[in-house]
C-alpha cells in the first residue's frame, strides 16, 4: 500500500487520493508543520521588514505609515564610498577565512585519520575543537594578549633577535585581514574537521585493504582513497559556505578593529550597525542587508552551477 501511495504521488493526484494520503501520513504532517511554522516565522515573516529599505522610514509612523521612496535609499547607499570599502573588506576577509579554514580543516582531518594511537587521536581532537566553544569576546582578548607589546609573540621574536622593539600588530592595516584569518583558523579548524572525519569513517575499508594489497602506502591511500572519498562532502560544504561569504564577519572585526585600521576592518555588518542602528537610519541598514542577501543568493547559484558542470555533486 505504501509503495502504491509513493508511486501515486509522482503522478498528478486526484483530490481524493491526496486526502487519503494525507490521512495516512497525518502524524508526519503534524510534525512537519512545526518546522514549516518555524521557517515561516523566523525566516520568511521578517522579510516584511524589507519594506523599510524602500521607505523614508520613521519609527513613530511604523512600516505601514512611512512614505515609500522607491530606490532612493539604495542610491544613497551605493553612492557612499565607505559602503564599498566595507563590501571589499567583507569579501576579502570571508574569502581568506573560507580558503584557509577549509584547507586546514581537510588537512587536519586527513592527518588525524592517519593517527593509529586511539588515545592520542581523541586527545588531539578534543583539544583542537575546544576553542570553538570560546565566545569571540574571550578569543579576542586572548589575541590581544598574545599579540600585545608584552605578549608571547613579541617576546619570542625579540628573544630570537628578529626584531629589536615590540611590534604593534594591530597598527598594520593590511595585516588585519591575516590576523582575522589566523584567528578563525585557530578557533574553528578542530570543529570544522569533525564533519570531514565523519565522512572519512564512511569510506569502505575494503578500498584501503585493496590498496594495501596492491602495495599502496599511506600517501597513496590519502591521495587516491581518502580525498576522493570525501570530495562530495567538501563540495557541498563549499557551496553552503560560499552563500555565507557576505554573512560572516561581525564579532572579530567589531572587537579587534581600531581607528588606525578602520578602512580595512569594517565589514557590512558593522556598517549596518553604525548607520542603521546607531544613527537610527533603519532604511539604509535594511537596504545594506537586502544587498547582502541578494549577493549571497547569486553566489550560491553560481557555485552550484559550477559544481554541476565540473562534477556530479550539487546542492539543488
Amino acid at each position, binding site marked *: 500500500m505504501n509503495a502504491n501511495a509513493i508511486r501515486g504521488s509522482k503522478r498528478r493526484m486526484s483530490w481524493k487520493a491526496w486526502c487519503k494520503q494525507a490521512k495516512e501520513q497525518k502524524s508526519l504532517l*503534524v510534525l512537519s508543520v512545526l518546522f514549516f511554522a518555524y521557517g515561516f516565522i523566523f525566516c520568511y515573516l521578517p522579510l516584511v521588514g524589507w519594506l523599510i529599505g524602500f521607505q523614508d522610514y520613521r519609527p513613530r509612523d511604523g512600516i505601514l505609515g512611512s512614505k515609500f521612496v522607491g530606490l532612493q535609499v539604495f542610491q544613497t547607499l551605493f553612492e557612499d564610498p565607505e559602503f564599498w570599502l566595507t563590501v571589499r573588506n567583507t569579501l576579502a576577509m570571508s574569502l581568506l577565512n573560507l580558503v584557509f579554514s577549509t584547507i586546514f580543516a581537510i588537512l587536519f582531518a586527513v592527518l588525524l585519520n592517519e593517527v593509529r594511537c586511539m588515545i592520542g587521536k581523541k586527545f588531539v581532537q578534543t583539544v583542537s575543537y575546544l576553542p570553538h566553544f570560546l565566545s569571540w569576546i574571550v578569543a579576542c582578548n586572548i589575541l590581544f594578549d598574545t599579540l600585545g607589546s608584552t605578549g608571547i609573540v613579541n617576546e619570542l621574536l625579540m628573544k630570537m633577535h628578529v626584531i629589536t622593539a615590540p611590534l*604593534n600588530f594591530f597598527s598594520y592595516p593590511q595585516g588585519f585581514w591575516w590576523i582575522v584569518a589566523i584567528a578563525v583558523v585557530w578557533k574553528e579548524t578542530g570543529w570544522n574537521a569533525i564533519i570531514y572525519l565523519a565522512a572519512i569513517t564512511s569510506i569502505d575499508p575494503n578500498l584501503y585493504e585493496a590498496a594495501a594489497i596492491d602495495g599502496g602506502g599511506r600517501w597513496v591511500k590519502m591521495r587516491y582513497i581518502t580525498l576522493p572519498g570525501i570530495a562530495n562532502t567538501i563540495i557541498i560544504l563549499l557551496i553552503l559556505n560560499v552563500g555565507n561569504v557576505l554573512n560572516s564577519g561581525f564579532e572579530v572585526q567589531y572587537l579587534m578593529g*581600531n581607528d588606525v585600521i578602520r578602512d580595512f576592518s569594517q565589514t557590512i555588518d558593522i556598517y549596518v550597525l553604525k548607520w542603521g542602528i*546607531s544613527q*537610527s537610519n533603519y532604511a539604509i541598514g535594511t537596504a545594506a542587508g537586502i544587498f547582502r542577501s541578494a549577493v549571497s543568493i547569486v553566489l550560491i547559484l553560481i557555485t552550484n552551477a559550477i559544481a554541476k558542470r565540473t562534477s556530479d555533486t550539487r546542492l539543488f
Partner: protein
Amino acid sequence: MKSAKRILAFMLSAALMVGAFAGCSGKQSSSSGGTASASSAKSTGAIKNFTAFFAVPLSGADTKDTSEVKQKLAELTGAQVKETWLTGQTCDEAIGMMIAGGQYPDFLDGSNATPQLLQAGAFVNLDDYIGKYPNIQKYFTPLQWAQLRQAEGGHIYYIPQFSATYGEPNETIHNDEAFWIQTRVLKWANYPKITTMDQYFDLIERYLKANPKMANGTPNIGYTILCDDWRYFCLENAPEFLDGYPNDGSVIVDPKQQKVIDYNTTPTAKLYFKKLNEEYKKGIVDPESFTQKYDQYISKLSTGRVLGMIDQYWDFEYSIVPAFNTQKLDQQGCDYVPLPITIKDGIKNQWHTKDGSVLNVSSGIGITTSCKDVDGAMQFLNDLLSQEALALRNWGIEGRDYSVGPDGLFTRSDEQDNNCNNLTYQAAHLCPYSYFPTFTGRLPDGKNSVMPNRQPSLFEKTLKQDVKECFAAYGAKNYVDMLGNNDKPGDWYPMYTYSSSLNTSTPAGLAWTKMAECKHKWLPQVCMAKDFESEWNNYMTAYNACKPQDFISAMQTELENRIKFAQENK
C-alpha cells in the same frame, strides 16, 4: 493502544508549538504582569515595582534587591526600581534596538541616543505632571524649565539628573577633563610650575630618562592616548581647552563676539597634534595609543606605569582605584593630579567650571509610553528628592554607615568609610539610585554635602598621602584648586547639549557625523605620520570635504537663539 499513541504524539507536538511561540507571548505577559502588580499595589498599599534602563555603563556596584537601603527607600517612597545598565553595546546600539522593538522600561535615560527616543515618541509628555509634585517643580528654576522645554521641542519629556545644585557649591574633585600627571613625576622635579604643553612633555621626558622603570621593573610609559570609539575625546578636543576655553564640547564660543569657532582647525589644534606627533616619534607617546581598547587602557593605567594622559576623571579614576589600593601604588606616587595647562603662557585655563553651571538639556531620565502608572513614577521621582531619601541614597543608614555630630554634620569613621567604598558592601547594603535626579552641592538641610566625598572632613580623610603632599606643595586644598574655578561663560553654555541632539537627517547633523568619522580615521594617522605637514594637509582636505561649515553655521544659529531666549525669559 494505537489511538493513545496518536494522542500522545499530538500532545507532544502541541507542547512543542507552545514552546516555540512562548517567545512572543512571554514578553506580553511579563509587561502586563508588571502593570497588574503596580495597579494592585496602589489599592493595597504594597510596594510598586518599576523598571529602569540607563544607556550608560554602570559605575560602582550593582545594587542587590535585598539591600537594606533599597528596602528602606521602598518603605519611604512606596516603590522600588529594578535598574539595568549598558553592557557590551554602545548607547546608540542599545537604544536603536529598543526603538526597533518598541518596548521600553518604565524609566529610561537614553544618554546620547535621546534624540532618537524623542523622534520615536518613546517618552510621556510630563508638562501636566510637573506642577503636581513640589520637589520636582522646584528642582529647576523657571528659566531652566523653559530652557529644557525649548531644547526638547516645546514639552518636557525628560529631567536632567545632574544639573541641579542646592546650597553653596562645594566641589572638591575635578570630575572632568584635564592633563593628568602622576604625583611622583612632580615630586621628582620638586613640584615645578607647569602651565604649558611644552613644559608638561619636557618634564615627562626628563623623568622617563632618569626613571625608565618602576620599582618592580615594569617599564614606565610617558604618555598614553585613549581613542577607543566614543572615548576619543581624550585625543580630539584638547585644543579648545588649550586656547583657554571651557568645555563647550563640540565648538569654541568666543564670549566677547558671541561667535562660534571650530577648534579642529585652529593654529592651536595644529600645534597640539604636531607636539603629539613629535613625542610619538621620540617614543614618549605610547606606541599602542591608537590601537588600544578601553579595557587595555584601564589595565595599563592600573599597573601605575603610565605617567600622564588626557582623560575625564570619571573615565579612569573609579576603575583604577581598586588596583591602586591592592598594589599600594600611592606609596610610589602613582596617583594622578590635574595640571592647569594651556598652549602658551598668559592664557587663563578653564578646564574646570563651577558646579551647577551646566544645564545638560540633551538627556535625562524620562518616563516611557510603556509605563502604565505615570503618576506613581512621578511620585517616586518626587519622593527621592526629600532630605531623608537623599541622605539614604548617598550616605546610607544613620548609625551604621554614618553618624551625625552635635552640629548636625554627618561624619564617617574609618571603618564606615572603608565599608562604603567597598563594592561588595555597596551592592549588598547601599542603594544610590545614581541615575535618578539628585543634587550636586548640599542636602536640603543646607549643611551636609550630598556626596560624602565632598564633605570636607571626609574628603581630606580619603586623600592619599602622595596627593596630599602634592596639593600642599602647590597650595591647593583639593583637585579643583589645582586648576582654579570658573563661572560659566554665558547662558548658552554648554553648546555640546545641542550638537549631541543632532542626527543625520539634517545637513548640520550629517556634517557633524562625517566630521567625527573623519577625525576618527585621520587623527591617529596625523599623530603617527613620518611627515607631519603633508599628513596634516591631507587631513585638512578630508576634513573640509565633510562640509564642517554646515555644522558650524547651525551652531552659530543655536548660540544666537540661546542668548536671545535667555534674555527674554529672565
